[in-house]
């Protein structure tokens, strides 16, 4: 009975919070407070949440440093766009999402098998090279319309779809991490040699986590291609990969809630800076350096955000107050 209570409570809290969030935003949209401009920011944040959470799976939890996440995103976006331009309506949309995710996963497998034997910076550079190759290929083949990109893409994504995909993928990855495969991945991050000597097939789990990450990035790209009307190869260049990595590191490597908080905070910062076009990137760069110098472990470190954490923080604050007041009394 006791165990059951413990199991049920956090789950209820989690899902309760998620549903409330959905309802509040839906209400704000239908009342008209959140206009199209704000909604575009929300879509960007949602897509970035998926990208950051999936990169966190690869880099933060499995410990494989990837600098080519935008490459998978571009595959998802292009495959989805090619499908939605040919198959009309919601079936086309769903088929496009599936095609985007599946194509990205296949490329993830093809890239992951040879390159995941590499370690650290070498893997980062190999994935970077892979993403650049993908970008150059999209720039030069006919079906993607070269450097001009595909335009007039049909728009499907509304708040409900976005929410479904973002929440769905986050839950998928959290559950994956709590499974035995997920724990194997975490053990690879902690110590590859120790994990191997415990009988964990390192390559298999690395590639599994890489494929799941690539699949989710493909879905994120497909969402991009079904909300924004134009996709171009340049949108998914090195800068995008870096943006995703920055969100993950800023939020905290190995913290899912950190990635979500990171995506939201950085999304809001970039919205606030949007009016300063000239200095936007300069301020962003300075912020990046300052954050890394003063808090290299990111906002959340590797901890997860929870109500218990808030409670503890509250107690600590309370304790401080009490100490202060005691001192004053003395």
């Amino acid at each position, binding site marked *: 009975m006791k165990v059951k209570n413990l199991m049920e409570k956090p789950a209820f809290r989690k899902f309760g919070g998620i549903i409330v969030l959905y309802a509040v935003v839906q209400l704000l949209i239908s009342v008209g407070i959140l206009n199209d401009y704000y909604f575009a920011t929300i879509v960007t944040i949602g897509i970035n949440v998926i990208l950051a959470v999936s990169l966190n799976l690869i880099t933060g939890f499995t410990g494989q440093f990837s600098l080519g996440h935008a490459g998978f995103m571009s595959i998802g976006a292009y495959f989805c766009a090619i499908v939605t331009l040919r198959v009309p309506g919601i079936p086309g949309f769903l088929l496009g999402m599936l095609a985007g995710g599946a194509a990205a996963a296949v490329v993830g497998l093809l890239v992951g098998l040879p390159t995941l034997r590499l370690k650290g*910076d070498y893997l980062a*550079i190999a994935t970077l090279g892979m993403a650049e190759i993908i970008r150059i290929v999209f720039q030069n083949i006919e079906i993607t319309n070269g450097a001009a990109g595909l335009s007039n893409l049909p728009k499907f994504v509304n708040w409900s779809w976005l929410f479904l995909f973002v929440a769905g993928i986050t839950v998928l990855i959290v559950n994956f991490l709590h499974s035995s495969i997920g724990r194997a991945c975490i053990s690879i991050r902690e110590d590859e040699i120790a994990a191997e000597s415990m009988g964990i097939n390192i390559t298999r789990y690395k590639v599994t986590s890489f494929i799941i990450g690539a699949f989710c990035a493909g879905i994120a790209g497909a969402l991009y291609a079904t909300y924004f009307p134009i996709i171009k190869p340049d949108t998914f260049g090195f800068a995008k990969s870096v943006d995703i990595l920055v969100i993950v590191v800023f939020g905290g490597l190995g913290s899912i809630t950190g990635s979500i908080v990171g995506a939201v905070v950085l999304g809001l910062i970039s919205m606030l800076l949007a009016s300063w076009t000239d200095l936007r990137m300069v301020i962003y*760069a300075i912020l990046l350096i300052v954050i*890394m110098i003063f808090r290299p472990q990111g906002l959340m470190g590797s901890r997860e955000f929870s109500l218990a954490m808030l409670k503890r923080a509250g107690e600590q604050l309370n304790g401080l107050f009490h100490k202060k007041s005691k001192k004053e009394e003395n």
Partner: protein
Amino acid sequence: MEQFMQQVINGLSLGSIYALIALGYTMVYGIIKLINFAHCDVYMIGAYVGYACMTFLHLGLIPSLCISMLACMILGVVIEKVAYKPLRNATRIAALITAIGVSYLLEYGMMYFVKADVRTYPPLEGILSQSFHIGGVTLKAMQILIVAVTVVLMILLQIIVKKTRIGKAMRATSQDQDAAELMGINVNTTISFTFALGSALAGAAGILVGVYYNSIDPLMGFLPGLKAFVAAVFGGIGVIPGAMIGGYFIGIVETFVSGYGSSMYKDAIVFAILIIVLIVKPSGLLGKATREKV
């Protein structure tokens, strides 16, 4: 045959540039294990300093080259002291993100000050603007100059690294930082000196590219920077002769691909080479394979 020789000559001059940039990457990686993404922007700043010297101060090429190298040297040391030194003991990924931050700062800071427009170098006069025809092969004086300057700088670098005390300190620090410190080597000075050397070479590459291709812009560093890094990895990262060989190899491959095949795919082929090298021999051409200790 003539076209072949022509491509070799073009490849050698392009390769010289890559080699100069790759040296900076490889030295910094060798000593603090950081992919210095800001390095390619130091090269860009070098090109702009050279442009300012030649356009506004009307200096000759060689004085401009020296000023540009000096300016980049100072910039490199400042970057190291301000951005990288506080992170010496942080995780590698944090240092890498800082490097990317510095790179963005230089690129977009430059864009803010000099605007994003492409600028053209003043045309060269006298012997440097001439070209020679030797049996159907065109050899520009500029190309000879680029290769000559590169070779002189590389010989200088070799002398510094192999013969001087600070060079010895650099090699010791790159082998084992803690042991070097115990032997009384000032590791901080050595690292700063490494950045100074690498950045000066990047500055030289910047002005040479400006004169050779005639156009510069604030984002010009990104692709050459990546390719130079590929060159460094190809030759074996941390190995100085490796970076030179890698630079020339990548330069020649690139000119051959655009000369005989499709120039659209030249970058893709460079990256494909990178991935193949990494998979077949991750330590690079001249690098030693290190065994992992348990």
